[in-house]
């Protein structure tokens, strides 16, 4: 590992952990996420979700009022009332997540106590758990870590041999991976989070964990505490990463190497075909990743090794060196990896570096485009089905598309001065 690791601090431009509710609530349709916070929290989730495209959402905010701030006792009573009302209106809910926010953390509203109290009252009809998605403690994808960590103590114990995939996957991707693992000979594959919050997978010493996402530090720690083995591998983004990730499981399950190759070789070959047209667009292009989703390191690795891109700078909100060791090892020597952010200085470096493509958040994308810098809007990466060998082409396409688009339309929208019409 010889990446150039730097740290930076200053004003940040990163979502908080509440944002991960946007995909978590879709993964588990029988769960409800109740943020205990302010109008800002409610507005944030709704804005991040793309402004109201869905009907009755499975998340909401218990908005603190001045009265709640005046006395914590009142706030607890109020929270109980709101939770009761909610559950009455939504009888299909099986798990209620109480999600802490910046304001609830600052006023030290004890959501663990609230969860305990509600669990007692509800007597198992609905399970109530809590975690914090506050922006003073978590960024963006870390919210998922909190939510899953909150579920770990509830997992049933089992010593059976099984593979546990940890981290939200699109259902179709999950189906596909389970199918492939079964072809490798691994028959018992479970997922956390499950598709129904009431069908929690068991855990124990027979459990081998593969993390599907790089931001699940706390969840991994708690699973280890429950006896599970957490495998070390690159993350399953791109053909190479996904293959090595699957191979790590295969090795742990002692699948015969020949049969592993027999399954994975054709997939990898097909992935190369799927990648080829995108590699044509991306190879030799320079990319700058701003910190947001924690996916930046695996993406940089994929974009460099499989798509031939040059890495100008790779930003990450925070860096867990141990968990990221496999990824860092695959980055080219001297890659600049910056932990934390001073958004103004980082943008200065973007402008100075003239990258061909910048991966950034929704607040920065259009302003950079207006300066003539092509961007890839990073929040899409956590919503799209991008995991696994079969999705490598789709993953590359997310990056080639903006460059391809520019190629298609730039000259017509920015015509050169001329005495003669281009087309007449």
């Amino acid at each position, binding site marked *: 590992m010889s990446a150039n690791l730097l740290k930076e601090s200053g004003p940040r431009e990163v979502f908080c952990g509440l944002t991960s509710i946007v995909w978590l609530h879709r993964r588990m349709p029988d769960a409800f996420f109740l943020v205990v916070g302010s109008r800002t929290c409610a507005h944030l989730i709704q804005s991040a979700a793309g402004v109201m495209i869905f009907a009755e959402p499975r998340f909401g905010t218990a908005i603190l009022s001045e009265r709640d701030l005046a006395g914590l006792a009142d706030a607890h009573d109020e929270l109980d009332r709101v939770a009761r009302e909610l559950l009455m209106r939504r009888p299909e809910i099986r798990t209620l997540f109480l999600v802490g926010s910046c304001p609830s953390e600052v006023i030290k509203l004890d959501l663990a106590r609230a969860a305990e109290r509600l669990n007692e009252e509800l007597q198992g009809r609905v399970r109530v758990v809590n975690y914090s998605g*506050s922006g003073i403690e978590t960024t963006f994808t870390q919210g998922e870590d909190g939510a899953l960590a909150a579920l770990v103590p509830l997992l049933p114990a089992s010593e059976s041999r099984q593979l546990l995939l940890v981290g939200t996957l699109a259902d179709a991707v999950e189906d596909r991976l389970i199918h492939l693992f079964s072809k490798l000979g691994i028959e018992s594959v479970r997922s956390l989070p499950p598709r129904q919050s009431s069908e929690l997978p068991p855990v124990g010493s027979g459990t081998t964990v593969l993390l599907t996402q790089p931001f699940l530090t706390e969840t991994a720690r708690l699973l280890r505490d429950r006896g599970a083995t957490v495998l070390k591998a690159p993350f399953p983004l791109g053909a190479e990463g996904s293959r090595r990730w699957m191979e790590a499981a295969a090795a742990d399950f002692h699948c015969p190497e020949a049969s592993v190759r027999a399954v994975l070789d054709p997939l990898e070959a097909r992935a190369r075909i799927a990648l080829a047209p995108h590699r044509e667009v991306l190879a030799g292009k320079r990319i700058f990743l701003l910190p947001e989703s924690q996916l930046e390191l695996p993406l940089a690795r994929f974009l460099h090794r499989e798509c031939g891109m040059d890495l100008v700078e790779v930003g990450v909100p925070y860096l867990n060196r141990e968990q990221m060791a496999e990824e860092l090892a695959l980055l080219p020597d001297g890659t600049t990896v910056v932990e934390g952010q001073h958004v103004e200085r980082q943008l200065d470096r973007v402008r100075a570096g003239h990258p061909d493509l910048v991966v950034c958040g929704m607040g920065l994308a259009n302003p950079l485009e207006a300066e003539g810098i092509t961007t890839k809007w990073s929040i899409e990466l956590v919503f799209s089905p991008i995991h696994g060998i079969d999705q490598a082409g789709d993953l590359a396409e997310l990056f080639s598309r903006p460059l391809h688009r520019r190629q298609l339309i730039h000259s017509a929208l920015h015509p050169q001065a001329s005495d003669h019409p281009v087309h007449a």
Partner: protein
Amino acid sequence: MELTLWTYEGPPHVGAMRIAASMHGVHYVLHAPQGDTYADLLFTMIERRGQRPPVTYTTFQARDLGGDTAELVKRHVQEAADRFQPDALLVGESCTAELIQDQPGALAQGMGLPMPVVTLELPAYSKKENWGASETFYQLMRGLLKQSVPPQPSHDVQAWKHEGRRPRVNLLGPSLLGFRCRDDVLEVQRLLSLHGIDVGVVAPLGAGVEDILRLPQADLNVCLYPEVAESSCSWLERNFGIPFSKTVPIGMGATHDFLVEVHALLGMTPPEAAEGYQRSRMPWYSESVDSTYLTGKRVFIFGDGTHAIAAARICSEELGFTVVGLGSYSREMARPVRAAAKKLGLEALICDDYLAVEAAMAEAAPELVLGTQMERHSAKRLGIPCAVISTPMHVQDVPARLSPQMGWEGANVIFDAWVHPLMMGLEEHLIGMFRHDFEFVDGHQSHLGHAGGAGAGNNHGTESVRASGCQDEAPSGQLIWTADGEAELKKIPFFVRGKVRRNAESYARTVGCKEISSETLYDAKAHYKA
């Protein structure tokens, strides 16, 4: 504590951002944790701006709370002042920072910065976005102008006459994330210019600090969006004696009234009454025979105060609709909304719970909904056509083309936008005539399409209407539909069936009959038309 699923307004500091981002040379230092930076996307994605909003967030973290967050604030204020060198600095805090009481405004005031510093105190736990915008605009203007306030206001609104110049007005209120403000300003400028009236300052949209300082030079202020500008207009009237116009020129009648009001205030001869008919196509489109079918269409209106009130007037007086519901999420505008509703024989719904609005909509059984994006989704669930008339903004509410709501062209835009969902003119009319044709009964696809599987969408609406109807009026008395009653009902096209069912049940209760047969349906029809 209040359970909120979707919210019509953001927190008040988002209102402050709208003012800062609308202007140039104004920077806003917001004491807030990193999550609050999401608000940038409202401007860059929803409003498709090619610039970041001029906001520096302190993005304090939990670990900072133990230490000196005041120092953190001052460092960010200094960096922002150095980097952006604004003409004026707004300093405030979001909901979380409000709790830790760093008083960033006071801190910044004490830093000896070279530009004016305006402190914003926007109570996040009791106020909302529009209030925040209004307060910010007011505080900024007051901060910049308070030194120039004369001891005794002595404003002559007709000064232009002896100064040998054209009269000059300011347009106050338009802002980013306001509904169609960008185009309303162009249209109102064009309208005033046609009448020989110059526009001095437009603010906050596109204004700088120097423009704010020029505000007192106008003869008159035009308050385009009371939600944002009324408090500022009042202050300018109290302190500088500059009167302001109160009519919002949305719709034919209101545009006419606006012109009359502005002319009267400026001491000018009122405009030709026929101007609107000559300059807008809306009156002819509403009068032409194609529009006859619009008559009496039941419409449910919900939005911000300004647009909801305007819509109610346009619907009832200019399009010939019947307004069956009127409401707003703007508590600040409750009084005029209630008055507008009362004029129409309705009780206004002042409410910011979108589910309560949806329930009221279902209960009113309208044929058209004019609302926000949230009502658009509710209406879709109920299978009712809908047009969007108000914030909260969605990217589709910021069209590329010129799309004002105000003035003569605004009336054209409104006609098209509201009538189009009502099934595209003649097309719907013919469907009304062919309503008994097999293509328009259950199971077949209507060109309306909104509700898709027709039955599904509509039953939803119908059922909720039935349920609530029963609760309201006859909790114990169960109504029975006879087979021939049901059969007759099925012959009615799905998009009006809910209303017919409702009328029949209500009629049956009124006359005390327990069974609804085909005769009851005919009786109810005669009764309700009479």
